[in-house]
């Protein structure tokens, strides 16, 4: 299973989607949604699985900041069939702070068991700060504490 594409569904413009080619950094703001599209091949009986996507930081283990899963139904197939599905992960800046270089991955689960995990896409997501304005920023005092 591979991550094929990333899209951003901006909160500011409902109904629109921004397409990104893999390898470019996706910039998102609070309320936006990242759509992770995966491609895979399947052969076997009909199954209902969970496609799960997460954005976070890869350290010793993957520290998930935001994630989501959705059920997908795969029809029975006696031979290998190429398929594609997506999962939407909402950006909530109370969980994923403004910052650069977040990673993401996706996986297919059956119940609580991981069936297949995609390679991690590194440095894929930048979370932008909310727009803010400052006025009359000044140092008012400095003294020995």
């Amino acid at each position, binding site marked *: 299973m591979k991550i094929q594409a990333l899209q951003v569904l901006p909160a500011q413009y409902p109904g629109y989607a921004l397409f990104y080619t893999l390898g470019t950094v996706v910039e998102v703001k609070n309320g936006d949604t990242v759509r992770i599209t995966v491609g895979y091949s399947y052969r076997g009986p009909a199954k209902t699985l969970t496609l799960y996507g997460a954005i976070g930081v890869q350290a010793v283990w993957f520290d998930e900041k935001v994630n989501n899963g959705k059920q997908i139904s795969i029809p029975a197939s006696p031979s290998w069939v190429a398929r594609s599905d997506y999962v939407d992960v909402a950006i909530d*800046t109370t969980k994923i702070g403004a910052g650069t270089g977040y990673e993401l991955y996706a996986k297919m689960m059956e119940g609580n068991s991981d069936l297949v995990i995609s390679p991690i896409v590194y440095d894929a997501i930048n979370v932008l700060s*909310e727009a803010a*304005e*400052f006025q009359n*920023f000044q*140092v008012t005092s*400095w*003294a*020995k*504490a």
Partner: protein
Amino acid sequence: MLYMISLQAPQVVELSVGDTLRLAVTFGYRGHTQRLTLYAAVGNLGFFGFDEIIAVQKPVDLPESLDSFTTCEQSIDIAITDAISPRTGYSLMAKIKEYQSQTEVRVSDVVNIIGAPSMWSGITSVMVVSMMMAMMGQVMPTEQG
């Protein structure tokens, strides 16, 4: 935008290694609630900009204020270490790290670093007293048996 603060008679603070300088800032803020970084430094203000010698930062939580500017007050402590040499005329800089262009301010020539008394000055004073006592011993008449 860079705001330069120029005061007619800026308060000069004298500090030694081990002291703490408390710096307070005020500003108007308009935007979503968010955690940003207050950054401050002591250093030299020169032709090529601000040369930081001791810098500190801390997270600050800004309130939700979407319609109007809310006045915010924050302070930050700078520990004076031996990284800075005893001298007069150091300057201060403060900013919100994520919004440097809107917030960076500098206050020039307001910090004097006083050197700790050296070991040699103590030894010198003991030597002077000893020499004076020795000279007095030679001048003062002594009783002859």
